[in-house]
Every structure is written in C-alpha cells, then in structure tokens.
C-alpha cells in the first residue's frame, strides 16, 4: 500500500494555492448561505431573520472556525 502524494515537489506551491482557493470558496459559500438566512423567513421557533444569522454563526462555529484555521495555515505555507 502506498501513500499517493498530492502532487510532485515542483507542483506543491500550485497544490497549496488550489487548497487555499478551495477553502476560500467554502467560506464564501457559507457567507452566501448566511446572507440567505438574513433575507429569508425566520426559522421555525424564531421570530426574526436576525435570529437566523445569530443561530447560524453559533451552531456552525466548528465549521467556519475550522475553515478559517486552514486558510491561515495554508496562507502561512504559501508565504513560507
């Protein structure tokens, strides 16, 4: 069993940049869904769409914190 590499050494900066862009698109996608949550009807049990956004930021915090953490890690890698 061998471990397949993400790419060869000469391609590594490009692979890192692609990973960074992928994480960035994911964060942007999350922000768009947060915007939708603000624009749409209140979720069941809520009385305003502002509560939707607050709820989203709270419950999805493991998601967006991880995405930001990996963005920072990859940014550092690209600079180093």
């Amino acid at each position: 069993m061998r471990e397949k590499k993400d790419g060869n050494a000469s391609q590594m900066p490009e692979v890192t940049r692609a990973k960074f862009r992928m994480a960035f698109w994911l964060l942007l996608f999350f922000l768009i869904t947060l915007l939708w949550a603000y624009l749409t009807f209140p979720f069941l049990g809520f009385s305003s769409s502002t509560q939707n956004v607050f709820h989203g930021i709270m419950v999805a915090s493991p998601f967006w914190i991880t995405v930001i953490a990996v963005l920072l890690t990859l940014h550092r890698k690209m600079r180093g």
Partner: protein
Amino acid sequence: MRIESWQYDLVFFFFAFLMLREGRKIYGRQEASIFLWGSLLWTGIIENVNTILGAYDYFAYANYYSFGGKLIQGYGGWISWIVFVPAAACIGWFLLSLPAFMISGELLGKRNIWLKSTFAASMLVSWDVFYDPMAVVNEWWRWTAPGFYWHGVPIGNWIGWFFLLFFFGAIYERTVVQRGGFRWLSGAERLLFRANTLDLSDMDIYRVGRVFYFRLIAYLPAFFLCCFLVSAVSTSLWNNRWGPFNSVFPAVGQEQYMTPPEGVIPQQHTPVNRIGHHN
C-alpha cells in the same frame, strides 16, 4: 422573502464547479472526478431510498412550475433530478464534502482514516445544523417522519449527515489516496476484479475508480444500519413530532406516532403557508 429553488440550484452548481476545478489540481484530474461520481452515486442512492421510505420529500415546493402536480405533486420545481431527488442536493453534498475532506487531510495529516473522516463529517454536520432549518422555511424539502425535531428538522437528519461523510471519506482515502484495501472485502473483490485489492498501487486509475464505487455499494448496508439504529433509539426516546406526515411516499410503521398521547399538544412543524400553494 423566499429563496427560490432555482437560486439554490444555480449557487450550488456554480460552487460545485469551483470545487471540482480546485480538486483536480489537488488530487489529480481522474481522482477528483472519481470523488464527484462517487458522491453522486452515494448520495443519489441514499437520498432516493430515504425519500421512497417516506423520511422526507422534495415535492412540497414549486407546484406552479412546469410539471408541478402532473406526475407527483410538486415534482418539477428543480432544474434537474436524480429520480426523486434534485441533482442540486447531491451536487451540494459534493461541494461541501470535497473541501471538508481536503481540510481534514490538511489539519490531521496521516492520521487514521476513520479519525479524519470523523473530523470532516462533524464539520459538515455543524454547517447543516444551521442550513437545514432554512430549507424547511423555504420548503425546498419537507420532513415527513417522526423524531426529535429542532427548528423543524429531525436530529436523524444530522445523524445521517455524519455517517454520509464518515463512511465516504474513509473509503475514498483508503482506496483512491492510499491505494489500499479493506480486509473484509478482499475476498469478494478478488473474485470480482481478479486482483489483490489490498494493494491497488499498480492498478490504473480507472480500475481504482471501479473498486471505489464497488466499496461504496458494499458499505451502504453499514451506513443504513448505523443511521437506523441511532435514529430509532433517539425517536423512541425523544419523539416530539406527530402525524399526519403527508409524504408522497407514505411510510409504514408510523401508526404509533399518528396521535399524540393525552395531554401533549402537537408542535407546529409545517411552515406558515406564505404563498398559498399548499399546506
């Protein structure tokens, strides 16, 4: 304001395209394609089975679209379908799971595949806890099963979300990234592929893809068993949803949840009829 299903379609397809483009640079052209086709196969089967079993349906919305109400009520509100499931739902899972898989690999390195898939799956569950209530109020889909509901969504949904990527991520990593195998499947695979599938390093990528799809199918019973067990236990302990459930595919075995016990006031689970097309 209602977020229309075509807006959902467009945004999800566009971001799926972006993820596939980056995925090809990260994992390779064929490897990323295998992830995409595997996602469609995996979620297409699972979502259709759940829909046919009456857990939820996608037909509540968009009766006013072209085929709405002709074949099955509401069928036709989305741009494209995989049988009874909008393609955007399966594509949406791909656009989230590929980056989650990449992120778990980036942060956890060469750790155990099940640990990495647990991490990626938990990350997606936290996103969906936010997202699914939005689907309910916009009537992109409706939940039609008993269970413990929170903001209109049963916790069985999030249990399913967890196991979706938990199994898929681990199988993809072991098969396509590490080019290894699962001992319990090696006998059947030896017969089917006429090769030692515990080591796929000499196998061309197209055959690796076929082995991967086979493994997804082989793990389907494990997926359904895990979801069923955890959901059944949670429903029997904490059910707060009472019928009628109004699925276009009525489920069997829901009789005990049709009438709330004396003294229990049923919660309102159907969104307020905001556009007047259905209840």
